[in-house]
């Protein structure tokens, strides 16, 4: 139970991306430390807490999720377009979960620990150690503090899993500062004693008046409990995310009557994927590398998938004893092939959604069925969306940009 002074890999940040990376590294035999600056892993939650079944399947977690890590199984969604048109997407079976992130994150970190990673909370990394090797700069360690003790660790690679703040990742030298145009501003209440149409469905409200360049969501966590939140663009609207959400809730008697048991807010990366996520002795994962679905803002599954890819790449680097950016670039290639190109397509859909007017959104709600909407959220069938847009001459340019 003591932090060592030498590791193969030091992972900074024990969210889903960091824990997945640490777990995979440990499984593949690397000496791994997973360090979290917070006093308790998983707290505070900064998340809508939705996780799709596709991610659960891809991560091999089917039938493995302990009951306490999720609050509710989801079988579809109800989407309201700006004019109030209701589109119901019903799969008739579980297609996702609303998690209890604090339990989920703790579970992931415990798994990393059980696979052999050394996990430590309340441990802040303040500095990266850089050294010259063969005329190039390598990151070869970290400096930080645990309680009131300072420490230094030597390692072959540091993983920046430091979330939206991404300070370590940027101190390392990656150009990953969030841009306003690809960052949403999110605010959410966890509410209890509220009324919901269907506690097995996500409920989404679009409309520039209620949520400019974003939407209001209700993610159920039981029959009378839900995350009620909003994500809006950050390019400067008349009100803050919190003010928009409060204004919307004021119009909803079934929500307004409830109590607030948690308040959550944060920046949400929605695009601006990084072509390069590695340096000599360094790689970034999760929100720090903007690995989030730009339509729905979900990043849990993306971070874990990227973490597994990165874990394998780091294990290969260890075998070859080569942690250079050139060697780690395999992570860029694999991530872009497996996730990035798809997510870039989703970003294109988003770019359309944020440019069109409310009445165009209404037209899409009339023209697209639930299944197509789901496919678009996964970067597929962009041509169907383009075809609908082409019906209106003013949207032709947006349509052609899609295909």
């Amino acid at each position, binding site marked *: 139970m003591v932090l060592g002074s030498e590791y193969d890999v030091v992972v900074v940040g024990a969210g889903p991306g960091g824990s997945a990376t640490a777990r995979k590294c440990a499984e593949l035999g690397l000496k791994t430390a997973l360090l979290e*600056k*917070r*006093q308790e892993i998983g707290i*505070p939650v*900064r998340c809508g807490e939705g996780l799709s079944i596709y991610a659960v399947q891809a991560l091999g977690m089917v039938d493995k999720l302990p009951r306490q890590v999720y609050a509710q199984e989801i079988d579809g969604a109800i989407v309201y377009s700006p004019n109030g048109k209701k589109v119901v997407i019903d799969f008739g079976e579980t297609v996702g979960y609303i998690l209890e992130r604090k339990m989920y994150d703790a579970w992931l970190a415990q798994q990393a620990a059980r696979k052999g990673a050394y996990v430590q909370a*309340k441990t*802040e990394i303040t500095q990266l150690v850089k050294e010259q090797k063969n005329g190039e700069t390598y990151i070869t360690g970290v400096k930080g503090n645990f309680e009131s003790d300072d420490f230094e660790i030597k390692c072959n690679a540091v993983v920046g899993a430091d*979330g*939206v*703040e*991404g*300070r370590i990742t*940027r*101190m390392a030298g990656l150009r990953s*500062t*969030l*841009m*306003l145009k690809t*960052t949403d*501003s*999110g*605010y959410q209440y966890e509410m209890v004693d509220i009324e919901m149409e269907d506690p097995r469905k996500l409920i989404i409200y679009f409309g520039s008046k209620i949520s400019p360049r974003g939407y209001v969501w209700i993610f159920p966590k039981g029959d009378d409990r839900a995350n009620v939140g909003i994500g809006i663009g*950050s*390019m*400067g609207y008349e009100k*803050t*995310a*919190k*003010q928009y959400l409060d204004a919307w809730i004021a119009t909803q008697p079934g929500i307004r009557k409830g109590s607030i048991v948690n*308040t*959550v*807010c*944060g*920046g949400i*990366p929605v695009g601006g994927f990084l072509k390069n996520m590695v340096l000599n002795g360094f790689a970034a994962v999760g929100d720090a590398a903007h690995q989030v679905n730009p339509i729905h803002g979900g990043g849990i599954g993306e971070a874990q998938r990227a973490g597994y890819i990165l874990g394998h790449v780091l294990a290969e680097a260890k075998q070859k004893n080569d942690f250079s950016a050139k060697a780690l670039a395999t992570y860029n290639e694999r991530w872009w092939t497996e996730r990035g190109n798809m997510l870039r397509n989703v970003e294109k859909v988003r770019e359309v959604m944020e440019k069109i007017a409310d009445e165009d959104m209404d037209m899409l709600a009339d023209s697209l069925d639930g299944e197509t909407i789901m496919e678009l959220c996964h970067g597929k069938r962009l041509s169907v969306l383009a075809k609908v847009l082409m019906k209106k001459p003013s949207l032709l340019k947006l349509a052609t940009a899609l295909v």
Partner: protein
Amino acid sequence: MDQGIRQEQGWTIDDDKCLRCGACVGVCPPLALDLTERGGIHFIEEKCTHCTLCEKVCPIGCIKVEPPKAKQHAH
């Protein structure tokens, strides 16, 4: 009221309202902000360029950035 207002040189935060989400840290190009475990958002004046991105991204609106102070008269 207003007990939580912390005024730094050209940068103000309402610590009572701030939920320490770190969105402002993430958009700050010169790394002039840091989310510390102890004192909330830490402001490093020398690095701040008064670009106002932190003010814009804040979901609560608890940050205010003022224009940079005029330089002192040259000696």
